[in-house]
């Protein structure tokens, strides 16, 4: 190599040194915040003894008990119900939230008056900001048996009898889906909207010249161009499909027993079961189970995505 080549190489190294320096705080943070606690995964396989304190003490001095801590998750018929509920709800949420959020984002993008657009955006984001416990109160104010808005005003208007919402499990798949959609639509909408706004206007102008209808433009331009966003969002949601929004499934149905067949999910089951026990081994076991299933599902769906379109896969 020439003198000059060496100095370029050296310069490049200096250049990458700067880049590594940039990465450092973030990586250090992830190691502390995410990777260090991952050591604690072994707690799920141990019978925790507190004689030795500290993370290391807990882990090192406790006895291995194999899969004992996982047993309660699979022991009764409830195991099937909670797994089914978790999967169906979260699966449904992925489909419905994505579809509605995209529709809403496209609509918002069509608004010519920018002030009005901002106004609508603020309003749809509103529910995302309300605490789930408060949402629980609000739903109760609508569905309360004695003086709820629906029983007092809506149902009589249609000539129907009041319903006992909190003891009939069959309504709750719809109620929870609507509440979830209502609460999160603003958040998803922002992500998709930001993506849609980024599409180059020339595409639409060219399509208009070619005489494409609005519907054709959405189908041929908007959707394909935001497809990467949709894929990533969906894959990430699949990775968390075994985790549920605890507030939604616990606070909103008010922990009502008769609703359990359709509202109980893994998180609520674990919370209730361990509330009196306070056993960290068993709660870790639930977490490990959820992570592993999510991980497998992501790898699997990523594989499918990759076969169809390499560029859109996560890895």
């Amino acid at each position, binding site marked *: 190599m020439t003198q000059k080549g060496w100095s370029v190489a050296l310069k490049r190294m200096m250049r990458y040194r700067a880049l590594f320096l940039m990465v450092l705080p973030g990586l250090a943070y992830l190691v502390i915040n995410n990777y260090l606690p991952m050591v604690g995964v072994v707690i799920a396989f141990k019978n925790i003894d507190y004689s030795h304190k500290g993370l290391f003490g807990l882990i090192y001095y406790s006895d291995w008990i194999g899969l004992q801590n996982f047993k309660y998750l699979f*022991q009764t018929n409830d195991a099937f119900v909670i797994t089914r509920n978790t999967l169906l709800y979260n699966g449904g949420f992925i489909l419905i939230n994505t579809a509605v959020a995209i529709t809403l984002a496209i609509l918002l993008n069509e608004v010519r008056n920018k002030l009005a657009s901002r106004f609508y955006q603020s309003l749809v984001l509103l529910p995302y900001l309300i605490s789930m416990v408060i949402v629980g109160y609000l739903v109760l104010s609508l569905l309360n048996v004695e003086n709820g808005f629906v029983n007092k005003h809506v149902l009589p208007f249609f000539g129907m009898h009041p319903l006992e919402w909190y003891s009939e499990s069959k309504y709750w798949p719809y109620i929870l889906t609507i509440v979830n959609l209502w609460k999160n639509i603003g958040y998803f909408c922002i992500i998709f909207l930001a993506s849609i706004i980024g599409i180059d206007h020339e595409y639409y102008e060219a399509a208009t010249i070619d005489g494409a209808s609005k519907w054709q433009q959405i189908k041929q331009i908007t959707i394909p161009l935001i497809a990467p966003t949709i894929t990533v969002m969906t894959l990430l949601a699949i990775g968390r499909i075994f985790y549920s929004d605890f507030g939604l499934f616990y606070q909103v149905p*008010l922990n009502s027993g008769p609703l359990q067949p359709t509202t109980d999910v893994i998180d609520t089951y674990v919370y209730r079961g361990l509330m009196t026990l306070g056993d960290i081994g*068993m709660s870790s076991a639930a977490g490990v189970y959820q992570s592993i299933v999510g991980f497998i599902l992501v790898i699997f769906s990523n594989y499918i995505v990759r076969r169809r379109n390499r560029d859109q896969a996560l890895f």
Partner: protein
Amino acid sequence: MQKRFQTSMLALSIILVLSLLLSACGGSSNKDNAASGSNAAASNNAAGSANSGNEKTLELKVAFLGIGTFKDVADVQDAISKITKEKLNATVKLVPIDPAAWQQQINLQLAGNEPLDLLVTSSAFNYSTQAAKNQLVVLDDLLEKYGQGIKDTMPEAIFNGTKINGKIYGVPSVRDTAADYGFIARKDLLDKYSIDLSTVKSYADLEPILKTIKDSEPGVSPIVQRSSTLGIATEMITSQFDVLGDSLGVLNLNNNDTKVVNLFDTQEYKDSLALTRKWYQAGYIMKDAATTQEGNNALIKAGKGFGYFSNMKPGFEAQESGIDGHEMAAVRLTKPVSGSASANIFMISIPRNTQDENRAMQLMNLMYTNADIVNLLDNGVEGKHYVAGANGQIRSVGADSGWVFNQWEVGNNALAKVWEGTAPDVWEQMKKFNESSIVSPALGFSFDSSAVKTEIAAATNVINQYRAGLDSGSIDPAMVADFNDKLKAAGLDKIIAEKQKQLDAFIAAGAGK
């Protein structure tokens, strides 16, 4: 791609190993600390005689259940510290912890090394598991040495009623350890319809009264529930059972034996369900009793309820009248009962995280023997949270006090000044009341659930599914069969067998005596 994935995995494992090493370093240094800490404690012990070894000034941390108002916690803490500084060379830090966060917060603190010197414990919050898992200090020797004053403040059965495997891990507060049960209702409505509660001898006798209210007071629910877990059907039979901690396997006190049975399969429970259902269908119970978010007191205050079932004690009517905003009258339908949890539902313990177990015990001793400290804790600072009233009693300063403490949690409350409106001799009455109670053979028994925790986790979910609905009358009592089937499937029999085994051992050891 494959290769890249492998490299990534390798990088990941390196990070994980690094993490392990890092946590090991941190952990072991902590372990050293803990070891040196206990050495220090040991040398303190070696130093011997009472109250020596207090040379180093400490801040003793006391964690308790934060129900009430603690805006002025700093004032109360400073006033207490003034006393303890002089006596123990230690100041006190009061740490109220929210009930909803309690389990998690205490679990986390006890897993770590944070200093914590006194802790409110309860059989409702895993007391026996905490003891079994070495989270609490054994108190017997410490009580002998520094806690001489404590034992005399309560009946022996209660004092010993917290033992686990023959060792004391917690000291009960002085309070109403027994309870009688009955119905309490708005006096104005009772007078309006000239109802005489003293003619009521059993729960079933209430029926005509409930009917009168239902028929003539629209918008007023004759019975309201205290909470979604304190259902009507259960309230009516509570005095007949000792729930042995969690209702999964109970003693039937009517049978006078020590056989653990399934509460939900007893005739008493089924009869109570039938009566509750009848009342529910007649409209005596609110339609949404099982899910209501309003407490009984709020409902009565708002004029939406007539009365409720409750456990009672001397001075109960006065207490409730204050809370409900209406004058209340009560009828007691059972004798006072002391159950297994009478002693251990509220105790104070020394966690392993204590900085100095000797001084923690000395502070605990003050909570049972020093009237000034008890009074500060219970009632706050004189002039700020109360003023002196007539007959040595105290009077409230106004609506919004910055210190409202639930005195049943800790200490010898009999030493505290009594509020006006309460009988001056309320604590004398309380003592007699406690002593006159029917005592469960399981008094002092606490169940260690660690052997059957898988089953408990499953059964707790089943209970949640059925119980509130059944107990409030909103589900058909026929469902109790389903309920029991599911409990069995969840492993109730195994829980009962384990409980029986522990109870037999407890009784054989003659514990509690």
